[in-house]
């Protein structure tokens, strides 16, 4: 079977079963059995006219068998029976309803631990196995597997609903889904060299999910904003490393390597989001990316706009990460000292003290302001915290340049 069909169908079919049984794990099991049956059956008898309906028929029968055959000790049998009946009587039309969004809202429910929402969505919607997700999120497969099982158990046993929330609740609940997709993207993004296939692909999986959500909720500005943001960032993928694999900072990237088609799509999405008049974090971050890309059109970086957008972001979500980027932008417009003044203080904040970009940004601004000894110390800490070898080498070159300039 064609991969693209499998990819679209898998999540839709898992969602169809899970929405009716609340049992994501059983839905996944039924689907993998159905796919296994297809692999045996189709090469012999030929691909059915409607592969999705074929898979659902098989998976549904497996689910009902499982539910009836094995009386699970945790669930009352009348509940199992009613779930089985709902499944049995569910209409099997040619068009299978797309309930992936409802399933994502269950996976990103506030009652589910925030750290497991992204892995859960990747598994339920895209069928990624626990080992692959674990390697992308730098966890042991056993630990990731256990946390996924626990989250699915909670969804079922505490009856977390599978539905798109009411309009008043929707934006806040949608944020949790968008955050999870963003987390999946950034996990993949931290391996720009593409050394680790699992992590490289994760950016593409995240874009697939962002596209899915933006397509299903076209009036939610932040859903469009997130997709725009991911497309902007991904458009610069090829420019992030030199031919010999060295790290290239944004300001020195060859704009000819940026993907014009993807940038065009992102621009259109951001305009559509803006027209909905509901500003949010992802739209602002996408707008920052858009301002950075001005260099492609004009040959000059547009730092004035970037500073203004970061001011907006800082007011909206005053996170330390935003504060660091804002300080770097301020330095470009108003000088290194102004940038240093705008930097957050690490004192007392352990997360900041262990955050590599904080030290790299500090080192950069200190060296520009002439505080060489302090800059050297900051570079050393940044190098110690970095796990990407190419970035470490880049920081070491900066540090070496510092030593020779004194």
């Amino acid at each position, binding site marked *: 079977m064609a991969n693209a069909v499998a990819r679209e169908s898998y999540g839709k079919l898992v969602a169809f079963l899970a929405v009716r049984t609340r049992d994501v794990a059983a839905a996944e099991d039924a689907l993998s059995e159905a796919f296994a049956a297809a692999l045996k059956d189709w090469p012999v008898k030929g691909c059915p006219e409607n592969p999705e309906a074929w898979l659902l028929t098989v998976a549904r029968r497996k689910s009902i068998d499982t539910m009836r055959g094995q009386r699970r000790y*945790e*669930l*009352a049998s009348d509940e199992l029976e009613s779930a089985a009946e709902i499944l049995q009587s569910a209409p099997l039309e040619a068009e299978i309803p797309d309930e992936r969004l409802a399933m994502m809202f269950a996976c990103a429910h506030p009652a589910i631990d925030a750290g497991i929402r992204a892995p859960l969505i990747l598994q339920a919607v895209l069928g990624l196995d626990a080992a692959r997700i674990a390697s992308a999120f730098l966890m042991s497969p056993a630990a990731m597997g256990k946390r996924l099982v626990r989250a699915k158990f909670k969804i079922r046993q*505490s*009856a*977390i*609903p599978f539905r798109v929330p009411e309009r008043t609740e929707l934006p806040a609940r949608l944020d949790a889904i968008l955050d999870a997709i963003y987390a999946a993207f950034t996990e993949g993004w931290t391996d720009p060299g593409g050394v680790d296939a699992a992590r490289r692909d994760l950016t593409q999986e995240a874009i697939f999910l962002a596209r899915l959500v933006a397509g299903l909720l076209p009036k939610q500005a932040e859903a469009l904003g997130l997709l725009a943001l991911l497309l902007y960032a991904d458009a610069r993928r090829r420019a992030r490393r030199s031919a010999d694999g060295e790290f290239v900072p944004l300001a020195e990237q060859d704009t000819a390597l940026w993907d014009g088609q993807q940038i065009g799509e992102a621009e259109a999405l951001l305009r559509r989001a803006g027209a909905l008049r509901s500003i949010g974090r992802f739209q602002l971050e996408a707008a920052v990316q858009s301002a950075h890309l001005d260099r492609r059109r004009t040959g000059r970086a547009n730092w004035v706009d970037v500073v203004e957008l970061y001011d907006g972001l800082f007011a909206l979500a005053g996170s330390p990460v935003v504060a660091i980027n804002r300080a770097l932008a301020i330095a470009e417009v108003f000088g290194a000292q102004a940038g240093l003044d705008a930097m957050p203080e690490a004192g007392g904040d352990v997360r900041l003290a262990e955050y590599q970009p904080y030290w790299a940004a500090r080192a950069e601004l200190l060296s520009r302001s002439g505080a060489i000894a302090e800059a050297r110390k900051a570079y050393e800490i940044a190098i110690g915290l970095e796990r990407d070898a190419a970035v470490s080498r880049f920081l070491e070159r900066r540090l070496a340049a510092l030593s020779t300039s004194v």
Partner: protein
Amino acid sequence: MQYLLLLHADEAGFSSMTPEQQQQGMAAYMAYSQALIEADAMKGSNRLQPVATATTVRVVDGKTQVLDGPFADSKEQLGGYFLIDVPDLDAALSWAARCPGASHGIIEVRPIWAMS
């Protein structure tokens, strides 16, 4: 689906209130219970005597051990419960948020283990 809402709060809070405040507090719980009954969600509820009255019991090697005091010594104590019947966790969570106990303590929401 049935859920047990376990109300945890600092017991000292109630005794340090003025009689009027205590009255108001009781009235809020009465109104909440009434709302649950009218929504046909109420399965049962009780307020517990303070932990000073608690006794723990366990059997070790066939011998019954009885100890004065609660199972867990913490700043907040289990002070009461509501057993409710609602369609799903979202409904249970919004009832928990409406409970007066959520404003002066913490409510743990636990699904009931259904027996067939």
